[in-house]
């Protein structure tokens, strides 16, 4: 009887904890949404802030964010997947590989402001790229590289050895086997890594403030869209940070809603993509 009571009490506590956690999360989301949504307008989304006219707009920041995500991925994804393939399939297992793996893991735990410091000094000053989207993207590439490499590597490790033997036993060359068997089987893991990377890029402020800066203008000419790469450009998160600093809370909440929307979309897209790639999982494909 006592035991039953104890179980019940414990169960109640667990429910309470779960409820609290859920409630807090939903509460925060709801609060941000309620505060921010009224400030989102077509004008807010499609123009840039004008001091002369006294209007506020984040179009430039949206464009900067897209540039930052695309450019960072364009650098980090090939390098990350490439190094994962090298480490897993070509390098001889041993001390060096373990050292690299260890470094990669450590790298993913470094505070992002340190990447910002390095990026500013190395890409910005030494390489002379200054405050620019390019400097920011290079910095962020370093930051998200471990995410992509590690997820790809884990996914490659999970591909059964029997697939490799099957392909090679049929005369497939190593690279052909990697392209046709390994990479497709590892795709869900790779996509997961990329999505995590996008999440970090969207949310990053410390590493970008002193590398990509806070420019918020839209290009005025066709060439400007290319020139943008070497101009300063603040992402939505940077703009959010700056708005908070200036106590412009309405704008801040407006941006927050846009960011949340992006993250939500991202998650939906991921799910669809991963489920597309996912092959039915039957266990008897043979061990390693």
């Amino acid at each position, binding site marked *: 009887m006592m035991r039953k009571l104890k179980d019940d009490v414990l169960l109640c506590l667990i429910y309470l904890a779960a409820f609290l956690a859920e409630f807090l999360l939903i509460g925060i989301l709801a609060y941000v949404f309620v505060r921010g949504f009224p400030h989102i307008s077509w004008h807010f989304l499609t123009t840039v802030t004008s001091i002369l006219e006294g209007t506020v707009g984040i179009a430039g920041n949206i464009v900067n964010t897209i540039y930052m995500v695309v450019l960072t991925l364009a650098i980090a994804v090939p390098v990350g997947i490439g190094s994962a393939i090298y480490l897993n399939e070509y390098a*001889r297992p041993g001390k060096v590989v373990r050292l690299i793996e260890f470094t990669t893991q450590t790298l993913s735990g470094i505070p992002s402001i340190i990447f910002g410091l390095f990026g500013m000094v190395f890409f910005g000053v030494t390489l002379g790229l200054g405050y620019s989207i390019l400097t920011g993207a290079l910095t962020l590439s370093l930051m998200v590289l471990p995410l992509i490499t590690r997820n790809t590597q884990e996914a490659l490790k999970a591909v*059964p050895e*029997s*697939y490799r*033997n*099957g*392909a*090679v*036993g*049929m*005369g*497939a*060359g190593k690279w*052909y086997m990697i392209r*046709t*068997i390994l990479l*497709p*089987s590892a795709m869900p893991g790779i996509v997961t890594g990329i999505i995590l990377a996008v999440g970090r890029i969207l949310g990053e402020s410390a590493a970008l403030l002193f590398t990509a800066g806070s420019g918020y203008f839209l290009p005025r000419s066709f060439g400007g869209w290319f020139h943008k790469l070497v101009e300063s450009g603040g992402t939505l998160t940077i703009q959010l940070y700056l708005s908070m600093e200036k106590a412009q809370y309405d704008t801040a909440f407006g941006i927050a809603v846009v960011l949340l929307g992006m993250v939500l979309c991202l998650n939906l897209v991921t799910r669809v993509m991963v489920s597309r790639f996912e*092959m*039915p999982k*039957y266990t*008897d*494909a*043979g*061990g390693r």
Partner: protein
Amino acid sequence: MSQNKISTDKLNLYYGDNHILKDITIGIRAKAVTALIGPSGCGKSTFLKSLNRMNDLIDGVRIEGTVYLDGKDIYGPQVDVTRLRKRVGMVFQQPNPFPMSIYDNIAYGPKVHGVKSKERLDEIVEQSLRQAAVWEEVENQLRKPALGLSGGQKQRLCIARALAVEPEVLLMDEPTSALDPASTLKVEELINRLKRKYTIIIVTHNMQQAVRVSDDTAFFLLGEMVECGTTDRLFARPTDRRTKEYITGKFG
């Protein structure tokens, strides 16, 4: 020796310091089934893999002696390993279809070797599946994932996949050990039909299976080839005491 498809001459293989295959000299008759028997760990799989150079993939393997395929040394400097593996195909103990459709599984090998035309691939897929006696069971689901098939169907699919590149030799490493009796029977029937066209080497732990499917048998023990000969003779009148003890189940 001229009717031998494969022969080895003093083949020695080492994994690091371990001497795994010791002075193996054997001739494998063309268009016949040769069974390799012997206790676990005696080197049957290792020997099989040395016939299409699958051991090349493993670090620290050293090979001495020669393996001839149609009289040519397969470890020679001019040998194209891709060509070799096309001629000498392999079926593994665990059915290992790729995580793709049945069709793509069969078409994989031909594509590796440069077949591009859709009609030709369609043809090969049907032909191979028919040869491996699974066509009737899968003809309406060629686009479905191969991983959804039963164990026995998977293994016959893997045999079809190996046949799709038109090999001359088929190496089978315990192809039925993961299968139920009914599927095993089907695969054995299949082997009996395939030997008209292919040279087959099969590793098995099952003496009855060796008797049922093979023309010749070779008995391995601790890395040595103790005895080989026609299956009828070897099982009826083994010349070596160790062979006799093994086939009568004294050890193993």
